[in-house]
């Protein structure tokens, strides 16, 4: 073949691009559209006036005492629940990673259960447990002591902080347990041999090494609390106060004040971005904390007489996060009146038949499953393509693509919903009122998790495996089909699972974007609360949890490791807001 013939038979001028090029370019375009369009609209709307631009919306938002109050409440909530998460998560991480704590695998599983529990379900359960009047714990307390006043009132700021923290501490736990797992015992023993006692070793060696992990766990918890809608809506609103997210939601009540919601969203967006930047920096400097690596020997520190008290402490926390809430949900699901004792007279299956047979809940379940499957399929596919493009550096600007794919992490669900509402209630994309706007919201929101998952998958597939196929005569798409895809399969299915779990529990964006015909399970749960239908809530909650656990089990089988370990290496994927 001559040079000319070679040029004719291979017209592409770009490295390794050939016939697959349009696929990669299209992927990039979809991603850019998905993220830049709504955020562009959000920014524009927050400064738009009838003529030109204005900062009036910002001025109005920040002058309004009610909004100021919401802002302050959010700061209080985020700070204290972050602190409480660290106070719970850090000792538990140390206990389960470094000591001979009994039953530590069971503890780890329960922490995982708390991790995947939708926070708004936990909040509902705690309404039933510690509501001032009918709360189960208060009833037990009254019958034991004869007192008239309730022991606990969950409808307070401390109550809210507590309920938020028991579902965000797993983020701290994961960060610290994984860091501790990387530190070789040698480092601590080197100090012991020089004469430091156990306490001193922990204080001068172990603690400084995990300090960046603790701080970044704190930031992750703060981010969770900032973005949360469900728990504040359930606990703060009856108590008579707002947070930023509930306030944004309230701004959408008739008549909707979209410009103000936009102006109120932008600071939340910036705060999240800033916190994540700080967290990333902390982890970037973590090099000295991850000394040792895989060869590190770890020996359990004996707790001695403290073994069982320590176990009891862990179980107490998990009791609050898992046992009590799950118990009360199960009780409510089978009771005529959830607050009454579980007797034969009070036993019923009516909640179940009501939930699964009534058309409104049925429709929501179908919507949720449809959206879950659709988003997970499209999301896993898109994430896989993106991760492939960025890992193999297939197009110019692939770093920008990775950045874009991870960018939604800084967008709280509520803010994303505001942005999507603005972007898709006008031409050329009129999607408001359809399931498609929810689909886009979920897809955008889950993209960071999906991308980090897929990225890890493709990073594990050596490029030489593909090159070996190319040089033997297979084109890029054929290599993708016959070599890459089979190797990436379990990783991609795991990505699918992550996205599906994220979608079926999503509340903070759905609550703004739903319309009567496009309700999803989380929204119905929220509605049922207004009607006081706690039995039906419990049934839906149990259904949601059962689905989640089934998927988690599937994922663990596929990956051969648990969901918590999955979030090692400080990937900010964990920051995607669940509520």
């Amino acid at each position, binding site marked *: 073949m*001559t*040079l000319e013939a070679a040029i004719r038979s291979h017209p592409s001028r770009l490295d390794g691009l*050939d016939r697959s090029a349009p696929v990669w370019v299209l992927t990039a375009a979809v991603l850019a559209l998905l993220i830049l369009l709504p955020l562009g609209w959000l920014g524009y709307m927050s400064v738009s006036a009838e003529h030109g631009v204005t900062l009036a919306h910002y001025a109005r938002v920040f002058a309004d005492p009610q909004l100021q109050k919401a802002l302050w409440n959010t700061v209080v909530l985020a700070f204290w629940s972050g602190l409480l998460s660290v106070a719970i998560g850090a000792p538990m991480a140390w206990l389960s990673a470094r000591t001979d704590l009994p039953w530590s695998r069971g503890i780890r599983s329960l922490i995982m259960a708390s991790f995947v529990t939708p926070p708004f379900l936990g909040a509902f359960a705690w309404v039933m447990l510690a509501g001032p009047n009918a709360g189960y714990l208060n009833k037990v307390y009254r019958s034991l002591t004869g007192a008239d006043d309730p022991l606990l009132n969950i409808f307070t700021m401390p109550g809210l902080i507590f309920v938020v923290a028991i579902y965000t501490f797993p983020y701290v736990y994961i960060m610290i347990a994984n860091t501790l797992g990387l530190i070789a015992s040698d480092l601590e023993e080197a100090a012991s041999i020089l004469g430091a006692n156990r306490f001193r070793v922990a204080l001068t060696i172990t603690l400084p090494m995990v300090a960046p992990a603790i701080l970044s766990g704190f930031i992750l918890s703060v981010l969770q609390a900032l973005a949360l809608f469900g728990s504040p809506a359930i606990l703060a609103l009856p108590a008579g106060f707002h947070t930023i997210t509930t306030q944004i939601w309230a701004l959408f009540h008739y008549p909707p004040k979209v410009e103000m919601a936009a102006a109120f969203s932008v600071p939340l967006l910036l705060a999240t971005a800033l916190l994540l930047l700080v967290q990333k920096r902390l982890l970037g400097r973590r090099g000295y904390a991850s000394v040792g690596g895989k060869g590190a020997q770890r020996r359990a520190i004996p707790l001695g007489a403290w073994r069982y008290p320590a176990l009891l402490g862990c179980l107490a926390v998990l009791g609050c996060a898992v046992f009590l809430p799950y118990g009360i949900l199960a009780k409510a699901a089978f009771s005529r009146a959830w607050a009454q004792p579980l007797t034969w007279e009070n036993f019923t299956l009516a909640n179940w038949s009501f939930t699964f047979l009534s058309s409104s809940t049925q429709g929501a379940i179908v919507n949720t499953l449809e959206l879950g499957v659709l988003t997970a399929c499209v999301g896993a596919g898109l994430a896989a393509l993106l991760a492939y493009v960025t890992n193999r550096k297939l197009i110019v600007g692939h770093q920008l693509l990775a950045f874009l794919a991870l960018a939604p992490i800084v967008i709280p669900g509520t803010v994303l919903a505001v942005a999507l509402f603005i972007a898709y209630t006008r031409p050329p994309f009129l999607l408001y009122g359809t399931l498609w706007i929810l689909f886009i919201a979920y897809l955008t929101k889950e993209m960071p998790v999906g991308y980090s998952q897929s990225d890890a998958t493709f990073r594990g597939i050596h490029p030489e*495996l593909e*090159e070996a196929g*190319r040089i*033997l005569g297979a084109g890029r798409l054929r290599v993708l089909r016959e070599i890459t895809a089979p190797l990436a399969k379990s990783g991609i299915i795991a990505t699918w699972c992550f996205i599906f779990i994220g979608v079926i529990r999503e509340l903070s964006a759905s609550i703004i974007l739903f319309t009567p015909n496009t309700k999803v399970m989380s929204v119905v749960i929220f509605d049922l609360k207004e009607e006081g239908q706690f039995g039906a809530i419990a049934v839906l909650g149990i259904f949601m949890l059962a689905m989640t656990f089934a998927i988690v089990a599937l994922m663990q089988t596929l990956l051969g490791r648990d969901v918590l370990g999955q979030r090692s290496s400080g990937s900010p994927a964990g920051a995607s807001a669940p509520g």
Partner: protein
Amino acid sequence: MPGVTIRGLTKRYGDVAAVQGLELRVEPGELVALLGPSGCGKTTTLRLVAGFLKPEAGEIWVGERCLSSPAAVVPPERRRMAMIFQSYALWPHMTVDQNVAYGLRLAKTPRAERDRRVAEMLKAVQLDGYGSRYPGELSGGQQQRVAVARALVVEPEILLLDEPLSNLDANLREEMRFEIRRLHETFAITTLYVTHDQAEAMVISDRVAVLQDGRVAQIGTAEELFERPRTRFVAEFIGKTNLIDGVADGTGTVARGRLRLRVASTDLTPGAPVAVSIRPHQIELAPRALPGTPAAPDANVLAGTVVRASYLGDGVDYQVRIEDSDVVLRVAGPAPPRVRLGERVSVSVAPGACVPLPSDG
């Protein structure tokens, strides 16, 4: 069977040129090793030949086909080449049979012939009976053989190997060197072999191209490179050597201080800086007290003192300080030692063993 011709090949990563103006010709059926330290551009060159990279300048020809130029790059799958990777790149989801048969399947070889050729090839690499195993169930050496079989079974025009032995342990590595040489003699495929291990390059190849900063510093047989290095870099990279920096004293002598060495050249420019390379095993030591065997009449004979002697079993590694100079020579002497630590010795080197190099090289 075509050869490979590379002309003026240049590849940049950002501002850094990994390969610049590289020239190389591989004769049909020849095995050429690309040898050099990390960062010399050897792997980049190989990947350019494979078509995974596009050059900024230059051309790669295989026989009458121009495969790469800045204007167009024939994709890897249409180059009729095979490659053996550092990681072996065996597909973990396919059995040994499926791995080896993959290239034949792509070439649409009929089923019966495919099976026959796969079986034959597995036999050639001493893996008959392993066809239904998965790569994960094989040892490192066996995986290596599968990778070889997968590359050879397609009867490629050109075979490329990228540090294929670097993941094996020392014993196996030595064994596989001979194995690869044997297979090359059997199949006689034009081959480019990348390695940073000079012993490996010397055992396996017909010729060795030493790469430095993206260029071929010198190409030749192992003997040529060892005996007649043309640059300081090549002299130091291939085998151990003593380098003495000096100035040409006449057309055939180099001076350093009061030291004079007759060298293997008669056309030096007097006054020009010259480095002299002397291999440790080409230096003879004799106790000065004894007259010993008389050195060749034209040999350089110097007086020195043994300042270190390390017994290595099959030889002795000496350091000898030359009198009236700052030069310390390493000398590989025979075992048992004929001279002792601290002993005054006479050092003789034939002029033919003193290879002059341009001092800046």
